[in-house]
């Protein structure tokens, strides 16, 4: 079967590239504190798995990410709806939003840690702040994307503004909102990690930094690997939700393979 063969080719490619990495690092005698071979990273993963240190910190970073994602998304959706509903609100608020958006939010992380402390709160706030903008913009654009003729149809049926919102504008905005949520999920993980870098008592970002100080580069790579898997799993969950919710969307039917790749903030 073709699918089986493709999967086999994928696996072979993965194993081959890992073997090449291992061989190159050993042949060129690259010091382990610059680039460790995959075998050492694997060993570091195994050791950490035994002590439970990864799992403990993973839950913390995951909680920060998901809480920040939820907070940022809810605020972005509510504010985006308010801005889309009223040109006046948009007129007064949008300049601040654009200004705030063009600022690199990670630069705020030190301030956020000063304001909200070393615990969970500062990480959630940082994650929420970064996750906020992509969804805000997409919510506004999405809610305004409803087709004029469809609005005319709803009006001709004497529908109320609330009905037009619920039955037409919101479903029309869903493709935009789902795309915004996917970006927001990736961004909130970034926000949580950055805040952990600045100051934290726990979490995978904190762990990366403490390993960096002790020159445990293989250990750092092990955590990077865990973070990559975590990001992938979160994205996969959102993609499968999107497929279920947006079964009717044309762009959905055209491109339904693989997770989308997007840059960080």
């Amino acid at each position, binding site marked *: 079967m073709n699918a089986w063969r493709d999967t086999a080719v994928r696996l072979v490619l993965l194993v081959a590239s890992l073997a090449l990495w291992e061989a190159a690092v050993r042949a060129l005698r690259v010091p382990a504190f610059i680039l460790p071979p995959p075998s050492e990273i694997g060993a570091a993963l195994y050791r950490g798995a035994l002590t439970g240190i990864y799992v403990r910190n993973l839950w913390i970073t995951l909680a920060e990410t998901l809480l920040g994602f939820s907070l940022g998304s809810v605020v972005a959706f509510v504010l985006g709806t308010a801005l889309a509903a009223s040109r006046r609100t948009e007129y007064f608020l949008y300049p601040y939003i654009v200004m705030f958006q063009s600022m690199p939010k990670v630069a705020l992380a030190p301030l956020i840690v000063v304001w909200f402390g070393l615990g969970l709160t500062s990480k959630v706030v940082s994650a929420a702040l970064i996750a906020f903008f992509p969804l805000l913009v997409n919510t506004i654009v999405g809610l305004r994307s409803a087709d004029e003729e469809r609005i005319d*149809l709803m*009006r001709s049926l*004497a529908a109320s503004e609330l009905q037009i919102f619920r*039955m037409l504008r919101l479903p029309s905005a869903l493709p935009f909102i789902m795309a915004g949520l996917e970006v927001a999920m990736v961004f909130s993980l970034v926000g949580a990690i950055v805040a952990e870098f600045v100051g934290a008592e726990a979490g995978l970002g904190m762990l990366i930094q403490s390993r960096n100080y002790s020159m445990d580069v293989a250990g750092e790579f092990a955590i990077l690997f865990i973070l990559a898997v975590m990001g992938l799993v979160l994205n996969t969950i959102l993609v499968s939700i999107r497929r279920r919710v947006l079964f*009717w969307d044309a762009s959905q039917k055209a491109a339904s393979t693989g997770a989308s790749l997007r840059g960080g903030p």
Partner: protein
Amino acid sequence: MAGIADVIAVKDLRKEYQTPRGSVVALEDVGFTVREGEFVAIVGPSGCGKSTLLKILAGLLPATRGEVRLRDVAITGPRRDIGVVFQSPVLFPWRTVLDNVLLPVDVQRLERNGSTSRALDLLALVGLRGFEHRYPWELSGGMQQRVAITRALVHNPAMLLMDEPFGALDAMTRDALNLELQRIWLERRETIVFITHSIPEAVFLADRVFVMTPRPGHIAEEVAVPIARPRSLDLAAAPEFADIVRRIRAHFRSTSGVDA
């Protein structure tokens, strides 16, 4: 003369648009009546104001002067007893065919149970029985427009407004749907105002054709079509049909944009 059997009475209608370069008169002194169960067509070139007229009839646009009365009540805004079919089907892709048909029922918070069997009967009438749980994007353009017609009929409107409903379809599908619309009308005797830029289509379908000339939009002539129904597509070759078409076309000698 607004008789008791008149469903629609349009009187002295004028519509002016304000543009940056001054005001434009889209409709001037438009007046007509439509009787209960009558099929009326309004034919004219693009830009003659017929879509503006339809929007005023649908309550989507206010008139600058004059009034439209539906069953002797002035139309001042959208009403629940009007069904509209637009040029494109305007279906919601996230709703099944049945749910699309039931949209007016949902908007007007009518009872869904009774309406569902009505919707299914109507779908059977337009030949879409068995497609009720499909999605619009699984249907052809002609089938989608049939769904739109069904949706416009589901809440039992006092009149049906159709704005070039078959204008975006290919000629063969258009012929088929004209026949189908005639069949539906013969069976249900809805009051229909049908807007088109095709003279043969107007003559084929209507009891009376209002000829609309542009700049400003005005009804130049009212032409009765005393041809017995059911009419067949072969009618296009009949002399009495050709005479009426020619008489209407005479209004547009100098203007373009009308299919003859």
